[in-house]
């Protein structure tokens, strides 16, 4: 075929249309939920946690998490008098069935619930080679199951160990901050069942959210701040021994 200038001019817009078709997406968000009006976070009040494991059980039930894998888990810290750099940490079955009684031997003992920190600058989303994991416009780090290859890059990239390879789907799996609940106006399953209010879902873009007052008036920390991940799970009353 001979390409004349005229034919070329016909072909170029066709290519442009094809690109538009490539880039145009159909918004499929949940009804009445505006992605740009939220910025989700969580507040964990360590002095309130009793290590009952309700959150771990609720998470497994709500999200169909396979036995032996945890999207959220509880760690029990034991810090003997001065060994703040070498705490003893245990998490039998992720704390799912509670913790066996522990003798009070003078050290410091407390529970630390853990989950995905939904980092604003998350290392896990940056290493995904196919764009299967991402931070949504409302601040939740999610995994697109149908796009994930199961290469595990994200699992080793997470500094908090919050990801695992789901043996049922062979894709990366993690806490979704109960995205299917928070977009419907509910709180997460773990926050719903927490009997002491140690876990609270927070929307940083909602000016009426009590998190703002809490953050102003309490000494709040995040995990591994030196990693500059922009973690959005805030810990109140966290001991220096927590890793």
């Amino acid at each position, binding site marked *: *075929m001979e*390409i004349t200038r005229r034919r*070329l001019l016909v*072909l170029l817009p066709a*290519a442009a249309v*094809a*690109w538009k*078709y*490539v*880039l145009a*997406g*159909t*918004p*499929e*968000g*949940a009804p009445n*939920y505006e*992605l740009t009006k939220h910025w989700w976070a969580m507040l964990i009040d360590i*002095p*309130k*946690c*009793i*290590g*009952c*494991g*309700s959150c771990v059980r609720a998470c497994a*039930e*709500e999200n169909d998490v396979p036995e032996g894998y945890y999207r959220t888990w509880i760690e*029990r*810290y*034991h810090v003997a008098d001065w060994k703040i750099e070498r705490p003893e940490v245990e998490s039998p079955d992720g704390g799912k069935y*509670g*913790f066996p*009684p*522990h*003798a009070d031997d003078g050290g410091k*003992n407390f*529970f630390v619930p853990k989950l995905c920190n939904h980092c604003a600058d998350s290392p896990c989303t940056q290493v995904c080679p196919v*764009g299967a*994991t*991402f*931070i*949504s*416009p409302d601040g939740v780090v999610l995994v*697109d199951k*149908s*796009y994930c290859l199961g290469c595990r890059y994200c699992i080793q990239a997470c500094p908090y160990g919050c990801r695992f390879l789901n043996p049922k789907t062979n894709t990366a799996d993690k806490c979704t901050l109960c*995205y*299917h*609940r928070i*977009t*419907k106006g*509910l*709180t997460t*399953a773990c926050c*719903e*069942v927490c*009997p*002491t*209010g140690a876990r609270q879902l927070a929307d940083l873009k909602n000016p009426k959210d009590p998190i703002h007052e809490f953050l102003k008036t309490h000494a709040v920390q995040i995990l591994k701040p030196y990693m500059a991940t922009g973690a959005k799970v805030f810990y109140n009353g966290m001991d220096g021994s927590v890793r």
Partner: protein
Amino acid sequence: MFKNIEHLVRLAVVMMIGVLGFVILRAAVVPHSFGQYGHYRGAAIGEIASRPVAFAGHETCEACHTDVVEQKKLGKHVVVSCEACHGALAKHADDPSSVLPKKLDTAILCARCHEANGAKPKGFPQVATAEHSGGLACDTCHQPHHPKIETAEIKTEGKK
């Protein structure tokens, strides 16, 4: 100037076919919503959000079980949401007549929170269940929705 440019035209044609092939293939293979919000499939957000819920949330329970709400208000368990003990009951909320909640064993359930453990906050009420009740179910004495035992003796003696 444009003499003997046939070989250039041929090259251009091959390149155009290549580019077009790429564009068409990409349009066919890459999901429509890829790149809608960023370097990922935008439709995935909607798919993840559309998962059904298992826990109905205490507001849903409270809409029907108003008597329990009144009872709970009097005691310390007012802050504990229904499904913390009763389990995930969105199915019951959807169809209250045919899906009924299971009966709970308070000997196991209460101990999950109240079994003494050195790592629990000091102010949290804890008991060593074996000594405290000797295996009796907790609801023999305590009413879970209003757990404090208010007997006449305790009220009149005035001791803490």
